[in-house]
């Protein structure tokens, strides 16, 4: 896109003014207040227009309107003509006041193309570039403050890139957007953590509280229903109990009414019988009647006279007086004494029997200093015979000696021969023929050697050993004979020294006698020991007998056996006396019984006499005087019976009167009649309440108990019903509305759902934004780097050869000629502003629709730079204008001078704005003056 001209019908101070622009670089130069900013704004709004909205405008829009509305005219209009890359020429016209007469027209065809670029109700020429009026401002318009911002804050370069990458520079960076989302999430959602105060936690707590409240309300409601049902059931139970009680009461009242009526009839009947009141007693002889009764009773109960048989009391007393007294001491032999006596008898018998078995004393004395075994050994030694020598053995020794001597002789002869032969042979060697001498000598030496050197001296081996064997045998026999003889001689000497016979048989006899005597002595000793033991046992038995007798009160002075016999005799004697004395008790009992019976007999006689006197006296008083006791009794009995009949008649009358009294109580007959009527009326009333003419209830045997039970039942059920009703009433007052609780819960859940949805939406949004940011950064970084890489050496005089952009952060780094990489933000101001302008150009290329080039509008971007930097920037812009239209607004003389020197028509143009005092619409279009 290239902007060809801008026409201001009325715009700020501009009226019917036109600004024509070159396709390359156009410098619009003028002093302050000459109208540069006005033309800048007219250019922008002529291309992009203003949005048409209902309602209020933003402050930025209001400020624009205030500063750019025409000072004196109403037709606030501006128009531009542009040439597009596709060859079309478009005329854009904007009615900035009413926003109605706004259009875009294809100048060649005269066709309205507004619909192609409509944005917020008006045509927006930036849309031909793939931008809109906001992004065009951020992309194509470079203001002095933008450059200054980059110079003053190196990080602004990166921020600007990020913003451009995020929203083409119109809004926030993606990072700021993400921070905003995080902050919103933190503030409007928060975390679900105990103690957190943000909405999510509050909503969760609110839901929990509402759930608890709802659960409580529901539970209360259910409890209420259960309680109400229980109360209802209890009320029904009360009703049942009351009805049962009423039925029983009605039945009782009915029975009472019937009874009352019957009693009333009875009272009336009795009242008729006793018109005079209480009946009077017919007799006053009660005392006599009692005496008669007593007399008859005494007579009837008089004792019977029975006289006892057997000994009299006196006889018995005499017999008792003749009885002996009971002796002291044992009547029978005491068991301990019996045991002691048996033991003593056993011990005594044992001693006697053992004494009869005493053995005889020993008959022989032992030989002093010699035991029986030594005697027997001595006899054996003396009895031994000396061994005899073998006679043939001496002969065999002689023979063997002869043979040895013979053999010795032969050996000596042979050695002589050998010596001779040796000597002869030696002589032959020395002196004779050697052949003869040598063998002879050898033979001789051999014979000598053979017999001289042999160990057996040349004898046959059997001869010499035979000689040695027979010599040993002979010597052995001779030694044994000598030893036997020596032993016999010593035994004999010892016998003689001991004074015992030397005859072996006598010695053996003497040994046998000594053995027998030793056995007798041993038996006697054993007897003595046993005898002592038995005597000791006897002594112990005697002691025990004495002790037993002592324990029974016997003073022991003689032998124990005699004392035991005396004790037994005394026991027999005492037993006899005791048996006689034992009769005393029985006789005394007999005496007492006899005395009692004799006393009873006397008393009976007295009682009979008294009863008879009573009978007689009563009979006289009752007029029944008879002759005998029996007739008197009959008379008195008749008198008593007649009297009883009279009394029974009177008693019946008294009881009836008492019944009348009892029935009436304290009431009079009319009162009784009234009470009966009232009872009947009450019964009728209860039956009416019951709803039946006759109560249908079975009265139990004890109706009072039944009534009490039913009253208790009614009271208890009534109390239970009242309790339940009271609880129900209380619960009713405390009852929370279930619908209200459910509504509160629903509201809390809705709020929680909203927050959770918000949280989810924010999280998702964040995820998509992060993903988009990473992808766009990755794609835009190489594009920008490529653009800058092409320009960088040229604009920096080859000081920097290469450039990179970090895909993650869009940080720009440049490479020095030395190969060192440096952050672009830390470069010199001149280089930084050049890189910034190049980036703006690159971004404009990147953000613009394919095939189009976006013009750059620069407003006083060199005002803060020195001359050298200004020239460098201008050179850069001039170079850039070969690819895209550049429109530069400036007030600086250096810039004007540079333009006059460098700009060439028709690609470039220089527009001088008139000073402020001149009319605003006066332009000095220098393009025509530029040299070709």
């Amino acid at each position: 896109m290239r902007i060809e001209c801008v026409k201001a019908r009325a715009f700020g101070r501009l009226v019917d003014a036109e600004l024509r622009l070159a396709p390359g670089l156009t410098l619009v130069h003028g002093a302050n207040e000459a109208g540069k900013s006005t033309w800048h704004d007219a250019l922008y709004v002529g291309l992009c227009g203003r949005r048409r909205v209902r309602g209020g405008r933003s402050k930025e829009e209001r400020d624009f309107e205030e500063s750019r509305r025409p000072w004196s005219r109403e037709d606030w209009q501006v128009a531009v003509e542009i040439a597009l890359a596709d060859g079309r020429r478009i005329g854009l016209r904007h009615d900035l006041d009413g926003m109605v007469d706004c259009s875009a027209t294809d100048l060649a065809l005269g066709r309205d193309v507004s619909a192609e670029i409509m944005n917020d109700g008006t045509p927006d020429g930036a849309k031909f570039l793939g931008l809109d009026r906001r992004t065009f401002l951020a992309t194509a318009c470079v203001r002095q403050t933008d450059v200054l911002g980059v110079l003053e804050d190196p990080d602004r370069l990166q921020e600007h890139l990020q913003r451009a990458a995020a929203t083409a520079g119109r809004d926030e960076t993606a990072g700021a957007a993400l921070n905003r989302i995080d902050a919103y999430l933190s503030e409007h959602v928060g975390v679900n953590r105990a103690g957190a105060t943000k909405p999510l936690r509050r909503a969760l707590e609110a839901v929990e509280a509402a759930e608890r409240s709802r659960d409580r309300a529901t539970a209360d409601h259910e409890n209420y229903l259960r309680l109400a049902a229980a109360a209802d059931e209890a009320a029904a139970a009360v009703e049942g109990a009351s009805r049962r009680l009423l039925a029983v009461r009605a039945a009782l009242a009915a029975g009472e009414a019937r009874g009352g009526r019957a009693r009333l009839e009875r009272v009336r009947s009795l009242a008729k019988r006793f018109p005079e009141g209480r009946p009077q007693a017919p007799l006053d002889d009660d005392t006599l009647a009692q005496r008669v009764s007593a007399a008859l009773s005494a007579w009837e109960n008089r004792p019977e006279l029975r006289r006892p048989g057997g000994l009299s009391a006196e006889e018995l007393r005499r017999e008792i007086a003749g009885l002996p007294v009971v002796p002291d001491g044992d009547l029978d032999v005491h068991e301990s004494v019996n045991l002691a006596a048996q033991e003593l008898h056993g011990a005594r018998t044992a001693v006697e029997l053992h004494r009869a078995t005493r053995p005889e004393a020993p008959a022989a004395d032992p030989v002093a200093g010699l035991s029986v075994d030594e005697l027997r050994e001595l006899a054996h030694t003396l009895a031994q015979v000396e061994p005899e020598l073998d006679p043939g053995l001496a002969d065999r020794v002689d023979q063997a000696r002869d043979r040895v001597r013979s053999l010795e002789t032969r050996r000596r002869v042979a050695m002589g021969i050998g010596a001779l032969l040796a000597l002869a042979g030696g002589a032959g060697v020395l002196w004779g023929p050697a052949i003869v001498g040598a063998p002879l000598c050898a033979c001789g030496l051999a014979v000598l050697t053979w017999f001289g050197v042999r160990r057996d001296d040349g004898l046959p081996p059997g001869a010499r050993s035979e000689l040695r064997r027979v010599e040993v045998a002979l010597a052995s026999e001779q030694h044994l004979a000598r030893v036997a003889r020596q032993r016999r001689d010593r035994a004999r000497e010892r016998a003689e020294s001991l004074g015992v016979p030397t005859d072996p048989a006598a010695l053996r006899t003497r040994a046998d006698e000594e053995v027998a005597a030793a056995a007798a002595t041993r038996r006697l000793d054993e007897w003595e020991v046993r005898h002592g033991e038995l005597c000791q046992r006897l002594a112990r038995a005697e002691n025990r007998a004495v002790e037993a007798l002592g324990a029974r009160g016997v003073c022991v002075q003689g032998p124990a056996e005699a004392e035991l016999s005396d004790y037994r005799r005394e026991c027999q004697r005492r037993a006899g006396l005791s048996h006689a004395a034992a009769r005393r008790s029985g006789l005394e009992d007999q005496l007492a019984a006899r005395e009692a019976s004799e006393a009873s007999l006397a008393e009976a006689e007295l009682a009979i006499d008294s009863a008879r006197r009573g009978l007689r006296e009563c009979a006289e008083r009752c007029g029944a005087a008879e002759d005998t006791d029996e007739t008197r009794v009959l008379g008195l009995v008749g008198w008593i019976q007649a009297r009883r009949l009279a009394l029974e008649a009177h008693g019946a009358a008294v009881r009836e009167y008492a019944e009348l009294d009892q029935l009436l109580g304290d009431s009079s007959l009319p009162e009784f009649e009234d009470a009966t009527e009232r009872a009947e009326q009450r019964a009728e009333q209860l039956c009416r309440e019951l709803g039946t003419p006759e109560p249908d209830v079975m009265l139990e045997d004890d109706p009072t108990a039944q009534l009490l039970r039913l009253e208790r039942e009614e009271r208890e059920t009534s109390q239970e019903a009242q309790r339940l009703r009271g609880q129900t009433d209380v619960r009713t007052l405390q009852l929370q509305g279930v619908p209200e609780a459910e509504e509160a819960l629903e509201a809390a859940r809705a709020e929680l759902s909203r927050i959770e949805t918000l949280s989810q939406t924010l999280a998702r949004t964040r995820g998509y934004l992060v993903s988009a940011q990473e992808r766009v950064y990755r794609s835009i970084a190489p594009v920008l780097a490529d653009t800058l890489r092409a320009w960088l050496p040229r604009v920096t005089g080859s000081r920097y050869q290469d450039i990179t952009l970090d895909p993650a952060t869009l940080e720009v780094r440049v490479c020095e000629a030395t190969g060192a990489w440096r952050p672009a933000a830390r470069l010199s101001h001149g280089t930084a502003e050049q890189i910034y302008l190049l980036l703006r150009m690159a971004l404009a290329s990147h953000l613009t629709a394919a095939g189009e080039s976006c013009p750059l509008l620069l407003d006083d971007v060199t005002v803060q730079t020195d001359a050298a930097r200004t020239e460098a920037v201008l050179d850069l812009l001039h170079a850039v204008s070969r690819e895209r239209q550049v429109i530069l607004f400036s007030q600086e003389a250096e810039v004007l001078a540079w333009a006059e020197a460098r700009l060439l028509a028709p690609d470039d143009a220089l527009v001088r704005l008139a000073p402020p005092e001149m009319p605003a619409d006066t332009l000095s279009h220098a393009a025509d003056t530029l040299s070709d």
Partner: protein
Amino acid sequence: MRLLLFSDLHLDAPFAWAGPRAASAWRQRLRETLASVAELAMRLGVDALVCGGDLYEHERFTPDTSEFVRGTFERLGSLPVYLAPGNHDWLGPESMYALNRWSENVHIFREDRLMPVELADGLTLWGAAHRAPANTDGFLEGFRVDRDGVHVALFHGSEHGSLAAQGSGKVPHAPFAALQIQRAGIQHALLGHYHQPRDAEYFTYPGNPDPLGFGEQGERAAVEVRVESDGRVTRERHVIQLTKIHDLTVDLTGCASQQDVRDHLRAQIASLEGLARVTLVGTLATQVDLRPRELSETPAALEALTVRAGAELCVAYDYDEIEMEPTVRGAFVRDVRAAGDLNDEERRAVLVTGLRALEGRDDLEAL
């Protein structure tokens, strides 16, 4: 014989969205509706008042409501009232029906099978009760009248053919088919359960006499049913509705600010009374900071107002154009529009939230 039929009053029902004050007032109006039905019965001089169930809600009814219902029917004097408990007011030992000491003119069907009551010579009313909140079998299964004359049934049940018209969420209870009515020997069935009124040839659903929510179709009425001696039935609906309820759709297209929205909305509801639900639709300018919850501040003339964003409400971002941008913004819009794991509502929320964040706005909670 003339009967006045009503059902599904749902006394003590909750109204979650309306807020405490309006919900309470709504419940009170349900009571007044019952009083109006009773008054209508007296005014029309019908022979009996009959209820097809769901008179109240068992889990929520208060002692006060219980006494109110009892008193209302008692004041009808000798006019018979026949009640057939439904699935919401099912008959149990703790139900209102069991706890109340009803006046003698009130007859409650207590069996879970159809039981007869002779309304007039030759006219029998067969009624049944739900004895549990769910799983009640159809009352007409295997049922056949056992006597001559005209037979009318009263119960709470779901006619198969009418279920689809009730909308989603309606659970069938005690289901039956229309054909079963005739097969059972019944001339007409007076029913409850479906809230949408229906006057079919052999059965009548009166519908709830007062609104229970938004979106209900048909008149809110009680039905006067005339049963002729030959079994023919004629019906006349008497509108009872006390609650004024409005379901509006407001187009926000052209509103440039929240104030515009408020003014526009206020103009739409200015003349309304009762309860209103507003569904916002249209294309909203991007700069509008719209928060429906803050718009639900109830104007004086209305009892309650709820404002919600409709599915058709969108923000005036030109997504087609934005996604052409070689920027993060463009890539973001492309990604979100292409995302397969988002539904339309979620997609719209993410797009608006992301674009607002990029614009540096603080109103990130999208509609």
